[in-house]
C-alpha cells in the first residue's frame, strides 16, 4: 500500500510492504544513508529522526510513518557538514558505517542540550556501537560540534 509522509521536509508517497520496517522501506527506496547492521535494535546504525527525535528505523513500521516527519542525513546536510568538520579535525572518522546515525543523534542532542558535557555525550551515544574507534575521538568531535566548532 502507499503511504504519504514527510521525508527531509518533502512530501513523498511511496509503496510499503506489509510488515516492512522503516529501515527496509527507506533502503528499498534508495535512501541508503540509513544502514543495516544487526537483526534488530542492538547497534544504532539505522538511526533516523522521527519528529526530530532519534529512533531506530528497524523498530518502526513503515506504515506507522504516515503523516510523520522523518529526517535522514540527506535532509540535514548543513548541520551534518558541521559535524563532519568536527570529526575530521579530531580524527574521528574510520569506516563511517555508523557515522550517519551518530550524526543524527548528535544533531538531536545539540537541540536538546546545547551545553552537553563529555559524560552526557557518552550516555546519549551509548546505543551507537562502533567497532573501529576507541570512542574517545568521537566524544572530542561531539564536544567541538556542540561547542560551535571549539573543542
Amino acid at each position, binding site marked *: 500500500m502507499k503511504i504519504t509522509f514527510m521525508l527531509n521536509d518533502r512530501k513523498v508517497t511511496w509503496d510499503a510492504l506489509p510488515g516492512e520496517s522503516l529501515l527496509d522501506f527507506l533502503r528499498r527506496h534508495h535512501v541508503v544513508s540509513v544502514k543495516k547492521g*544487526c537483526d534488530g535494535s542492538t547497534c544504532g546504525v539505522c538511526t533516523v529522526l522521527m519528529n526530530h527525535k532519534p529512533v531506530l528505523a528497524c523498530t518502526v513500521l513503515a506504515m506507522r510513518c504516515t503523516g510523520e516527519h522523518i529526517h535522514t542525513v540527506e535532509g540535514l546536510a548543513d548541520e551534518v557538514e558541521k559535524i563532519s568538520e568536527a570529526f575530521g579535525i579530531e580524527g574521528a572518522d574510520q569506516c563511517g558505517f555508523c557515522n550517519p546515525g551518530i550524526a543524527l543523534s548528535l544533531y538531536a542532542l545539540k537541540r536538546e542540550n546545547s551545553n552537553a558535557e563529555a559524560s552526557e555525550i557518552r550516555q546519549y551515544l551509548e546505543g551507537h556501537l562502533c567497532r573501529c574507534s576507541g570512542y574517545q575521538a568521537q566524544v572530542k568531535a561531539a564536544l567541538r560540534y556542540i561547542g560551535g566548532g571549539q573543542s
Partner: protein
Amino acid sequence: MKVVNQYVPSVDGKGIMLGRPAFTDDLAEPNSLIVKVLRSPHAFAKIKGIDTKAAEALEGVELVLTHKNVPQKAFTRAGQGYPEPSPHDKFILDRYVRYVGDEVAAVAAVDEKTAEEALRLIEVDYEVLEPVLDLETAIDHSSVIHPEEGIREMFPIGFEPKRNIAASYAMHVGDVDETLKSCDQVVRETFYTQAQAHAMMEPHTVNARMDYQNRLLIYSSTQTPFHVRRILSQALDVPISRIRVIKPRVGGGFGGKQALHGEMLVALTTLRTRKPAKMVFSRQEVFESSYSRHPMRIDIALGAMKDGTLKAMDCKILSDTGAYGEHALTVFMVAGSKVLPLYNKVDAVRFGGQVVYTNKTPAGAYRGYGAIQGNFALESAIDMLCEQLEIDPIQFRQKNMIAEGESSPIFEIMGEGTEGTAMTMETCKLDTCVQRGLELIDWHNKYPRRILPNGRIKSVGMAIAMQGSGIPYIDMGAATIKLNDDGFYNLMVGATDIGQGSDTILTQIAAEVLMTTVDRVIVYSSDSDLTPFDTGAYASSTTYVSGNAVLATAEKMKLMLLEEAAKALGCARESVRFDGQVFTTDSEETITLSQLSNRLYYNEDQQQLTATASYVGTKSPPPFMAGLIEIDLDPETGEFDIVDYVSVVDCGTAINPKLAIGQIEGGIVQGLGMAHFEDVKYTKQGRLITNDFLTYKIPTQQSVKNLQTEIVHSYEASGPFGAKSVGEIGIDTPPAALANAVYHATGVRITSLPITAEKRMAGITAKKGEQQS
C-alpha cells in the same frame, strides 16, 4: 614535511557521513535476486538426501544450489597469497556440514520473503554425527571432521586431516630443557583464549551482475579484492579475465573480511541466472557463519636467574581452527614469531604445536593474528616470574627486552607458514615507550595498588608488544599516478581501505612527494580492472608496503615531470627546479605545472604521463608499544571500572597522526573487549549462544573512561617517510595488562580469557577461603 605527519582529515569522511552511496549494498543493482543460505542445525552431519523440488517450484524462486549442482573442487576461502598456506579443505557446498551455521543449500529468489519461504521448503535428511567440540580432545578423535577425498595442502604445513590436524609446526633454538634445568626460577602456566568475534558494523555483503561486456562484476565488502578474483576464478572455473571485483567502501574488517564469505554463492547465482544477485549477512550469520579468532591453549614455561636474566622460553600451543583450516598455520606461527622476539636475549627458545579442526564456527584472520593470544600468555607469565624472583617487572622487562640494533634468531626461522627473514631492529623505541608510559600513568605512585578510603582498590598493570609491517617477499603493493590537464593527479592503488584510512594516508604520501596538496591527488582504490595489484589489507602491510609503492610511483612521476618541463623550457633536466607548482630553470625561466599539463594534453609533445611502481618488502620492521592500565576494583565482588589506558607506540613516522591514534585506540578498546567481557558460549550440542549484540557485548561509549595515546619519535629508514605499521599493534597489550592489574588488586591470577566478573569473583572467594583455612 608539509602533508605527511600533519593534520589531514580523511578524504572520504564527509561524503560518507552525508550518506552518499558508498558501501557494497548501497551499490547493488535494484531488483537483484536475493540469495539466502540454508544453514546446518547440526554441529556435524552427513547429508544423506536433499529434496529441493518444492523450493524450486515456488513462484519467484530462480535457483536452488546444493552440493549436487555446484562444482566439487576444494579451495580455501582464506584471502592469502598464492599458493596459500591454508589447506584447500572447503567446497562451495558439500555433503558434510561441519558446524551449526555451515552451508547446506542456497536459494536465489525475487525477494527476501520468497527466499526465506523456499529455504523452509527444502527437505534435508541428515545422518547426524558425533561432533568434536573441545580442542583438547580433537586430535585422533573417533569423529574425523574432514574424511572427504580431494582436500590438500599447497605445500607442507603439517596437514593431517585424518587426525583432525589442519597444521602443525615446531622450532627451537638452543637446548630448552637443559637451560630451564639450570635456571634459578622457572614458571610454568597454561593459558586459554577465546574465539573473539570481529563484530565489524557492516555485515559481510556482496552483489554480482553481468556487465555490458558479459563479464561477471562483483562488488564485495572484502579486504582482499585481488584474492577474491583469483579464488572465484579457480573454484568456479571461470577465466580470471572474465571477472571484475570492485571493493567499495568497507565498514570495518579486522581480518573478518580477509576471506570469501558470500562471494561464491552470489557469483554462481549470477553466472547461472545471468541476473544480478546480492547477499547481506544477517548479524546472526556474521557471528555464527563467518569467522572468529582462533581460540588457543598456550602452555608456557619461562626460566630466569636470580639476577633477573631471562634464559629460556618454551611455548607449546594448541589452536582451534574450527570447521575449516583458514589461516590455521599462519595465525599459529604469529603467536610465536611476533611475541617471543620481545625477549631476544635468551639462550634457548622453543615453539610448536598443532592447529586442530573442531565442529565450531571457523576461525580466521583477526587483528593481532595470533600475537594477542601469545602476548596474553607471555606477558602474564613474565609478571608471574618476576613475582617469584621478587624482581620489579618493569626493571625485568627493561633488562631483557629487545632494543634498537638487536635481532632475534626467530625472525629468520619463522615466517608466514614458511621460513622467515633475518632482520635487525633499525628502529626500536620500546625503552622510550615503557618510560613514557610509566610517566603518563604515574606508575611509581600507583604500583602495584592503593586502597581507597571507600574500600575500593586502584591498581595498575602493563604489557609490552610488537607486531610486523607486511610479509617480506610475499606482500606486494603497486600504485599508478596519472597526470591530468591543469596539473592534478589520479592515484590508483590496489591497496584496500576498509575504514582504517589507507586512501587518505596513501594520498598524503603522493602529495608530499609531488609537493602538492591532498585535494590535487584523487585516489581510487581496489578495482581489479582499473587499479594495479595489491595483496590487500592484512598483516599490517598497507602503510609500509603499499605506502612504499606510492612513494616510488610519485618519485617516478616527479622525474617524468622534470623531463617534460625541461623539454618545454629547452634545457637539460638537471637545470630545472620544481616546487610542486612551478618549474624554474637556472636562468629563471618558468612554466607552471598547469601550463605544462595543458601543453602535454592539448598543444605540443602530446602524451599521457603515467607512472607505475611496485614494492615488495625485504623485511617486516615491527612496531612496538607499551600498554598500561589502571583499574578501580571492588574487592568484595571483583567488579571494576577501567579508569585509564595508556598506550605509547613506536610505529615509525605516523603518516597521519590522528588516524594513527584512531587505529591504536580502536585496537585498545577491541582488545579490552576480548580481555574482560567478550565471552563466547556454545550449547553442549555445539550451537553458538552468543550470536547477537545482546548476548555478545562489545565495548560502548561507556566502557573505557579515558585513553591516553602517544606516538614516540622514531624513523624507520626503510619505510615511506620513516613509517612502520600501526593497524594491529594496538590490540595486543590489553589482555595481559588487565590480567596483571587484576592480580595486583586481588592476588588472583586469571589465566583464561575473558577475565569476566564471574572468574574474578570466583578467584576472590577462593582466595578468602585459603586465607581463612
